[in-house]
């Protein structure tokens, strides 16, 4: 700190500190603390706020634990977000390996330009694209019928199937890029050494490349899980009535019931879920937060 004052002077240093404090305190910490506090307050009409009925209560959380439907939606959200994360890893890992170690380095900028095109298109447009493709009279069904693979159109948007398809498509790149970065930092000599010593390809991956790409996998998993569990667009567009997502219930509390207190309790549950996931990933992969977010 004293070094900073010496370099930038008192005024500039305090400006830096003030900006950072504004960000962390006013935009991040205090709103989240207030969310936490608010989730323990009852939902009251405006006149009763601050009155004798305005006491701390666990009622909002009990609403969740008393509702088997909400609990099951929560659990399915966790399960399917984990499945999405796993599928993304399975799809992205071979590609990340190919791009970082096999493909010609000269072709990489072009490939990456093409790969980032979907990221330039907003999430809502990408899920909308799948809405068109998967609809009953959509291109996929007509194509399959024309090719005589199926006879009657398939209703794709039942259950969680279409949500899975949409989420994997939307977030797979968030898995690809971190793993690519991680594998790229591996010395190719190590792969060659393993091969020279007679290791079959799968063991080279299992013992050399996969361990080295752990920070990338951790980072990708955290991002994909968080984005999937917190996604609002994909489930709203692609889910059916039988497959509800936890964020949809949060939305109901906020907009339909106008019960912001229960809404904040549910939002807080989502936050806890993501925090637990980050912690679990950091433990399993033995990485630090600074390895995950880079």
């Amino acid at each position, binding site marked *: *700190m004293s070094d900073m004052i*010496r*370099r*930038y002077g008192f*005024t500039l240093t305090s400006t*830096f*500190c003030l*900006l950072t404090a504004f*960000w*962390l305190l006013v*935009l*991040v910490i205090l*709103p989240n603390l207030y*969310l936490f506090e*608010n989730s323990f307050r009852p939902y009251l009409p405006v006149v009763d706020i601050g009155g004798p009925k305005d006491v701390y209560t666990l009622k909002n959380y009990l609403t969740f634990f008393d509702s088997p439907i909400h609990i099951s939606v929560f659990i399915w959200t966790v399960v399917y977000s984990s499945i999405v994360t796993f599928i993304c890893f399975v799809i992205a890992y*071979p590609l990340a390996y190919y*791009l970082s170690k*096999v493909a010609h380095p000269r072709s990489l900028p072009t*490939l990456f330009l*093409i*790969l*980032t*095109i*979907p990221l*330039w*298109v*907003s999430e*809502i*447009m*990408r899920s*909308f*694209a799948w*809405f*068109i*493709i998967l*609809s009953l*009279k*959509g291109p996929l069904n*007509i194509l399959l019928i024309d090719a005589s693979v199926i006879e009657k159109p398939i209703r794709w948007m039942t259950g969680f199937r279409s949500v899975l398809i949409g989420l994997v*498509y939307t977030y797979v*790149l968030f898995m690809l890029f971190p793993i690519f970065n991680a594998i790229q930092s591996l010395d190719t000599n190590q792969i060659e050494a393993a091969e020279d010593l007679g290791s079959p390809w799968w063991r080279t991956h299992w013992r050399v490349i996969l361990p080295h790409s752990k920070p990338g996998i951790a980072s990708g998993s*955290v*991002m994909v899980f*968080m984005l999937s569990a*917190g996604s*609002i*667009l994909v489930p709203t567009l692609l889910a059916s009535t039988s497959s509800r997502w936890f*964020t949809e219930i*949060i*939305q109901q509390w906020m907009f339909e019931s106008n019960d*912001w207190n229960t809404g*904040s309790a549910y*939002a807080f549950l*989502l*936050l806890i879920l*993501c925090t637990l996931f980050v912690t679990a990933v950091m433990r399993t992969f033995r990485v630090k937060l*600074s390895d*995950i*977010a*880079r």
Partner: protein
Amino acid sequence: MNRKSDWLFRAYLVIFLGYMLLPLLVMGGAAFNDSRFPSVFPWVGFTGQWFVELWNDPRLLNSFKNTILVALAVVALSVPIGTAAAILINSLGGWARSTLYSLMVAPILTPGAVIGISTLLFWNRFSVPSGLHLSVLGQVSYISAFVMLLVLARLQSFDRSLEEAALDLGANHPTVLRRILLPHLYPALGAGAAIAFFQSIENFNVTLFTRGPYDTMTVYVFSKVRSGITPTINALAVILIAVTLTGAIAYEIARRRKQARLDALGPPPSDDE
């Protein structure tokens, strides 16, 4: 790496690229198909009417204007905040650094819905009504982290003795910042501003909870999708894709020209990160 597996990898890459791009083509194609439901099969006929309908929608232009205003405000706030935070954290060490770092990257790992709701509730407590200003604050809370990470990475290659030399030669503090540090950071600041701008345009989750009665582009599209689907949404998608793609390609061409100039000047640096 033997030939057979190389061939397999190539096929896989092509399939993956198709998987990434074909849905976008389907969506783009549907914008020109003369059918009330957006689709490419069956192809009814070529039409431009969806673009005309889109242009005649006053809500669209309004939401477009709002989106740009929010994005500019987010850039204006998050770039200075992220830069200040990166400079601050770079001069710290030990537990202070790791604690601050965790706090700063935490918003990236927080679901947008949580950010949106906490921002809405917090400001509502001080009787600030919801609206686009809250969307800006909510978005800044996590977009600043992207800027911070970019600037922090750039700071690693900064030679601090330059600042000391400037100070020894009698430069005052603002001059050191303006003439020594900021010019070194310009690439990161530019990239940070671009990322902040596009993140803000794409944002939906935070905006949905904080926007109040106002529309942004994503919210507008969302409400259109819910109220009844017509190919006007596809027409909008085509325009957006065209604009961003032109931008991306122009950026890439500029980057390659610059790279070619650098290559022509002398041997490339050993590490280009």
